[in-house]
Structures are given as structure tokens and as C-alpha cells.
């Protein structure tokens, strides 16, 4: 069943809220901090995946600072929920969350993608505390997540698994193998989130490999589908809660996002998929952060 925007009714929403208005404010602040941390990792001249990291920043903030059960003091805590960044190039958004939670020292941010650093160009569970698998070769993360979900099911454990996919990544056939399998195994402890920003490395997803009617596609594959504005914190939280509550099988959130979100010069431009900012752009980026802060506090 395809559900359009998770909950639209302000009044109805307040009855089942699993968060307070103050928490929503705090999560919005966290999302800004996530974007600030992303900027910190890619100063002018350093190539990095700004676009796809900032498009998923709000969802990541909701997951790490509210929805998921995590234990930064013990990254291997068996009761933790798992997050797999299948679109591994957006790992900057994950590092930005992990550093806020204290998984590793802030000094590491400046050493991302260096020989001495622990933050690799793509997620590496051996190098970085809090990273749960090796991803980056696109299309494999949902399968890995399904394996985890099945492992928890075999042992009747309550852990949940979250997977972040790119919309461009959905061209990988393996994704759909996993989609079919997850439905077959009724993996109701698995939630996929598609960072539906409409752009990939060289152009729009529509031009490169059209995947129209995405909601209907997932729906016809047996998934619970929720479409949301991926930059609306309340919609994100409600959808994640609805995914938890849905027990018949896996849920996918189609999060409509803007590539490069919040950074005006980069928004909606494929060029910033993986690029170096100029000094001027970098200054502008911090101005965007300040503007966001003012908006939230207002």
C-alpha cells in the first residue's frame, strides 16, 4: 500500500508523537551540525561528496540522534541497531553523526581520506568505530542489511537495521534481488531509506537510467512504502516510527531530497556529487550554515 506523506495532519500527529517539539528543534540543530561537520571534512580544494552527503543529512540526524538505539561507549554493543550506508560515497554524513556521538575524536575529521586517518573514502568497518560493514561498491548494502536482519530474526532479537540507498544506486540489479528477498523473508526489522535526490554523478537519474513510479515499484515488490520530504524533520520522524510499527514486512522511505541541500550554490547540481569547493564557495557554504541556524532559532 503506497502511503503519501507520512502524516499531514498537525493535530492528529500530536496524539501519537514519540517526540516533543523541543526534541524536533534539537534534531534540526543536529542536522545543521551534521552539515557543518561535512564542511569541516572537505575544506577548499579537497574533493568530497558534498551533494549526496548533504541530501541525506536530515535523515541521518533523525536516525542517529533519535530513532536508532546506539551506544557510542561500546560500538559493538550487541543490542545496537545497525545502519548500513549502501550509497557509501555519502559516508561523510555518517562520519558527521558518529563524531558528534563521540565514536572518534574530532581531529579525525580533517584527516578524512588520508593515509594516517581512520576515515576512509568509503565505509570501512575495520578502520572506523561505528561503521558496520564494508560498502561503496554500489548495490550491496541492502543485501548486507537483510543478512543482519535475518540473523537477528533467527535469534529472536529486537535489533533493527536501516539502509541508506541512493536513487541512482537503484540501477544496480542486486538491489532488486534484495528487495524481493526481504519481502519473501518478511524482514519487518529492516527499513530502507532512498535518498531520492534525482541526481547522480554525471546527470539526472531520469536521464541516465529512468526509474519511474518508484513508489509503485517498491509496493509491487511487497514493501510498505512511505513517501516523505526528506528535509522535513517531523515527516522523517513519523515515517521512521511508522516503519517500526509496521510488522508485516520491510518498509521503505522514499525521501524526496535535494542534492547539496542547504548549500545554495550546490543545490540540484550534479557537479557537486564529488567536487572540491573554491575558497569563495566554501565561505558561502558557511554562510548557508549560519542562515540555517538563524531560521531554526527563529
Amino acid at each position, binding site marked *: 500500500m503506497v502511503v503519501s506523506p507520512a502524516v499531514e495532519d498537525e493535530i492528529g500527529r500530536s496524539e501519537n508523537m514519540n517526540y516533543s517539539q523541543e526534541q524536533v528543534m534539537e534534531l534540526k540543530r543536529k542536522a545543521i551540525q551534521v552539515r557543518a561537520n561535512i564542511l569541516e571534512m572537505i575544506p577548499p580544494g579537497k574533493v568530497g561528496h558534498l551533494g549526496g552527503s548533504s541530501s541525506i543529512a536530515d535523515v541521518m540526524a533523525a536516525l542517529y540522534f533519535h530513532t536508532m538505539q546506539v551506544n557510542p561507549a561500546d560500538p559493538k554493543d550487541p543490542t545496537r541497531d*545497525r545502519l548500513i550506508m549502501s550509497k557509501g560515497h555519502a559516508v561523510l554524513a555518517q562520519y558527521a553523526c558518529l563524531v558528534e556521538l563521540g565514536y572518534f575524536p574530532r581531529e579525525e575529521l580533517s584527516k578524512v581520506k588520508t593515509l594516517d586517518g581512520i576515515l576512509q573514502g568509503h565505509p*570501512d*568497518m*575495520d578502520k572506523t568505530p561505528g561503521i*558496520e*560493514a*564494508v*560498502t*561503496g*561498491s554500489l*548495490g*550491496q548494502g541492502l*543485501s*548486507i*542489511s*537483510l*543478512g*543482519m*536482519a*535475518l*540473523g*537477528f530474526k*533467527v*535469534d529472536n532479537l529486537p535489533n533493527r537495521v536501516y539502509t541508506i540507498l541512493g536513487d541512482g544506486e537503484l540501477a544496480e*540489479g*542486486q538491489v532488486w*534481488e*534484495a528487495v*524481493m*528477498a526481504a519481502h*519473501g*523473508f518478511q524482514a519487518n526489522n529492516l527499513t530502507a531509506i532512498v535518498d531520492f535526490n534525482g541526481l547522480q554523478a554525471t546527470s539526472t537519474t531520469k536521464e541516465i537510467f529512468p526509474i519511474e513510479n518508484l513508489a509503485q515499484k517498491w509496493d509491487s515488490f511487497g514493501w510498505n512504502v512511505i513517501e516523505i520530504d526528506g528535509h522535513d524533520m517531523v515527516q522523517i520522524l513519523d515515517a521512521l516510527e511508522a516503519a517500526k510499527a509496521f510488522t508485516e514486512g520491510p518498509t521503505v522511505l522514499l525521501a524526496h531530497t535535494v542534492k547539496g541541500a542547504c548549500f545554495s550554490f550546490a543545490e540540484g547540481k550534479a557537479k557537486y556529487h564529488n567536487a572540491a569547493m573554491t575558497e569563495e564557495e566554501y565561505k558561502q557554504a558557511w554562510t548557508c550554515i549560519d542562515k540555517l541556524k538563524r531560521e531554526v532559532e527563529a
Partner: protein
Amino acid sequence: MRTSDSLRKTYGETLVELGKDNKDIVMLEADLGNSTMSALFGAAYPDRYFQMGIAEQNMASVAAGLSLTGKIPFINSFAVFATGRAYDQIRSSVAIANLNVKICGSSAGLSDFGDGKTHQSIDDIALMQVLPNMTVLSPCDAIETEKMTKAMVESNGPVYLRINRNDLPLVTDPKAEYKIGQMTEMVKGKDVVVFATGVMVQQSMEAAKILEKEGISIRVVNVSTIKPLDVDALESYCEGVKGVVTAEEHSIFGGLGSAVCSALSKKRLPIEVLGVQDSFGTSAENYSILLKHYGLESEDVAKKVRAVLAAN
């Protein structure tokens, strides 16, 4: 003591036996369970058996995820699909992360004789041994298969097991201890050493009998762990011989022959590599015809031994 000559049946039965006490073992299967014999596990422990359908790529990455929850997943398919179809998944999801995933490549080599080149694997050892962290095992009989399967469960990290579809004679000692990495002297001899793996072990043992009649004495060593290759043992078995022959049911590129040549590159010994030349497989009425067609019989081993002696 195992009496069956079937490597794959032994593999399936051993896992059923191990799975009784070890609840972490889980099996994943890609619609070939009756051939790989993983179905035996499914019948015994349906809750720990995952039918993944004809989707090997997903199967390999799902196994990675299962291992990340503490399970010991075995993925099963024909060798050609288990390694080739899911290569990047094994590389990225499994090997880079050094996860405890066990891969069973069944119907390996030319042993799926009737199905032809799309189903025969002459490149699986090459694909697997090039991966860092990967262990590559190639048993020569059912006795060794049983020991290896047990050792795989005990080991930590990714392992590839290459299994022949056809029944093979029991040639190894059932009482001998086994550990991953060992190579075993099957026939004592002094003129030439033959390093063989899989079905070529018994062919090389037959070759020893042929050559004995000609006054040529060969040492036959079963190299059932292709990786990590025990280079010290390899060198010690070369002591006193006039030449080296390698024998495998695999491409001459990237398999046992390549590994041995690389390891012995500093030795001034003539080496002959016996294997499938640079070609794919083909359908045949039975396995023996194929071994003959590709020059993988005992007489072919003997020819290589004579050649290496002639090079002296």
C-alpha cells in the same frame, strides 16, 4: 569413518553433523541444493536454512550480513556462479571486510561434464586466490572434504571450498590429523615432485605407477590448500628432485601452477604446469572423456614428468 566416495554428499552430511551442536551455522542456497547437497542441512534445520533463489549476488552479501550478527554462513552454488556471478560481492562485502563467510563452489572444474562451458569452472581458484584474506581449499577426496568442512567451521575468516561433482576414490588417510594449510606427501619418490590438487592427485598417483615401470621415481604431493600456500613445505618437497610438475583441473593461468611457479621463482628447477589450456569447457558424455579431452589423465602427468626430466 566415512566410506562414501561423494565429496558433495560428505560436505552436506558433515554440516548436518556439525550443525547439531553449533547453532551459529547457517546455510544459504541458490536453487541448487540437491546438487550441492546443502539441502541435507535444510531438511535437518529448516530455521537455519535460507533459500535465496537464483540470486547469487544477493546471497553473497546477505551472508556477509549474517556473519556480522555472529552467524557462520555457508553459501552454496556451482563453483562458476558462487565465485564468478557474485565476484564483486565476495570481494567487497566479504573479503575486504574479512568476514567469516564460507563459500562452497560445488560441481567445480569440468566435473559438471554434461552442462558444458557455462557451468564448468576453470577460473574459480584464480578468482578466489587473488583476494586478500581469502583461504582457498581444494580437497582430493571425501575424507579430506569432511576434515576441511570441520576446519572451515573452526576457522575465522572467508574460505572458499572447491568441490568435485563426481565420486572420487578415497586416497587420503582417514586417521591423519588435518589442518588448513598443510600439504601431504601421497607417494614417496626422488626424481621429480608433482604438486597436484583435487582430482589430479589420484591421476598423479596413477602416473607414479606408470613411471615406476620406466624407472622414474616421482614424489606426489597433495596441495589441498592453494592459499595460504605453505612455501616452506613446498620448498622442502623440492629438495633433491630434478624438476617440478604441477597438476590441476583448472586453467593454467591463476591456479595452483601459477602459485607454485611464483613461490619457486628463485629455485633453479625446471617446472611444467599441467592444467586446462587457455580455453573454456565443453559438454561430454561423462567426466572421464572430458579429463582425456583436456589432457588431465595420469598419462598426461607422466608426459610432463618426462618433459621436465628431459629439460635437465
